[in-house]
């Protein structure tokens, strides 16, 4: 076995490929997060709504997305969905980085429903008596939710949401299946070109580990600084 040569990781073409992959992975994560979080909040509110049809729709959204693997979502959005578009829209998509766009769509939906469940459990963690107490001092329904329920729900939701963000970061690796040139794609590309699997995969491992551990550290610090104080 050829010896480990870290120099290829520090400069040169392979290094550039790997760094580009790392950057795209980060971009995919950020873009998907920005869409997933509001989406998750909306679905969570639907699932905890007093209106039964809204609750049902929310449940259907969550279950239909959650029970299908991310890879299958990616395949659908990349291979199947464009067929449903009118020709002009399809041409537009194909001209503007369809791999990344479809990846973000799939990742946003997949992550979004998981975040919805985390936010929902955060809402459920706040005892109903809290809202009752808020109404008893005269707060209207909307104000009670805004001032008493959501702040507490938010604090309870942050740790699982950060954990979900780590999952999102790791899930961007699956986008390689539709050809998005993120970290795993580039690592495999380096391996094929140079047979230096150890160096390429070490780079990827360190990249994933660092970001995962940073996010986990953030979660840990948040929990220390803003502990959940049960009512």
């Amino acid at each position, binding site marked *: 076995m050829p010896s480990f040569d870290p120099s290829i990781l520090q400069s040169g073409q392979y290094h550039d490929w790997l760094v580009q992959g790392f950057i795209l992975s980060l971009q995919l994560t950020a873009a998907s997060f920005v869409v997933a979080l509001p989406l998750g909040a909306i679905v969570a509110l639907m699932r905890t709504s007093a209106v039964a049809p809204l609750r049902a729709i929310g449940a259907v959204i969550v279950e*239909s997305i959650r029970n299908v*693997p991310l*890879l299958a979502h990616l395949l659908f959005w990349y291979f199947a969905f464009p067929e449903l578009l009118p020709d002009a829209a399809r041409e537009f998509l194909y001209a503007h980085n369809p791999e990344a766009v479809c990846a973000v769509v799939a990742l946003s939906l997949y992550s979004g429903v998981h975040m919805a469940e985390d936010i929902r459990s955060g809402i459920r963690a706040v005892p109903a008596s809290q809202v009752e107490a808020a109404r008893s001092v005269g707060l209207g329904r909307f104000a009670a939710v805004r001032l008493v329920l959501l702040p507490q729900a938010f604090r309870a939701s942050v740790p699982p949401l950060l954990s979900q963000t780590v999952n999102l970061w*790791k899930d961007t690796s699956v986008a390689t299946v539709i050809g998005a040139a993120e970290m795993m794609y580039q690592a495999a590309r380096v391996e094929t070109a140079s047979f230096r699997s150890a160096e390429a995969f070490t780079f990827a491992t360190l990249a994933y580990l660092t970001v995962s551990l940073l996010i986990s550290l953030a979660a840990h610090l948040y929990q220390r600084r803003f502990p959940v104080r049960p009512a």
Partner: protein
Amino acid sequence: MLELIDTYWLYFLVGQYPDGPLGGLALTVLLSFGALLLAMPFGLLLGVARVSTRRSIRWPVATLVQLVRAVPLLLVVFWVYFFLPAVTGVKTGQATTMLMVLVLFDGVYLAEIVAAGIRALPKGQLESARSLGLSYPQALRLVVLPQTLRNGLPSIVSQLVSTIKATSLGYIIGLSEVSFIATQVNTLVFTQAVEVYLILALTYFILCFGLSRLAFLLERRMARAS
């Protein structure tokens, strides 16, 4: 859509078997169940180690768990499929690679379920078992773990659902699991991508949602029994 199903249902179900290795939905299911089963002893051992009073046992396991959870499953698949043969000289097949990686991941997640279950069990259970004269290993085997596994059954079923979804990653190294077969069919047919992938999604949905409901019912039944 119906003629699509009519033509390709067998291929979708078992891949090229018997003219080739098993594939399709059968492979997905077998691989998932097999991985979870094989991971059970591993998960039990790690889980017990997670709650050990001795730091020298607890910390290495905690570190392993943290590491495995911080990297994508696909990355580990790549390590095993591309790197390991260079070191050991033995080329592992796609199915074997996926099985090994899934057993690792399932073992780690099962360890967390087992550890949580052991911690959640009332202290008095272990105390009364030890008071009768049973040793710690005996108390674990006869009193703590049977209850932990029973209480953790809904979580274990959820882990099975995760495993089924994870088998899809075998696609990327060319394993003929159900997603790969779907794409093969799509390439053959070419004009019915939407139907093909909707069927794929539906298949996963029925399997995973069905198992999730089972987990939910189990949890309800256990809550009522206590």
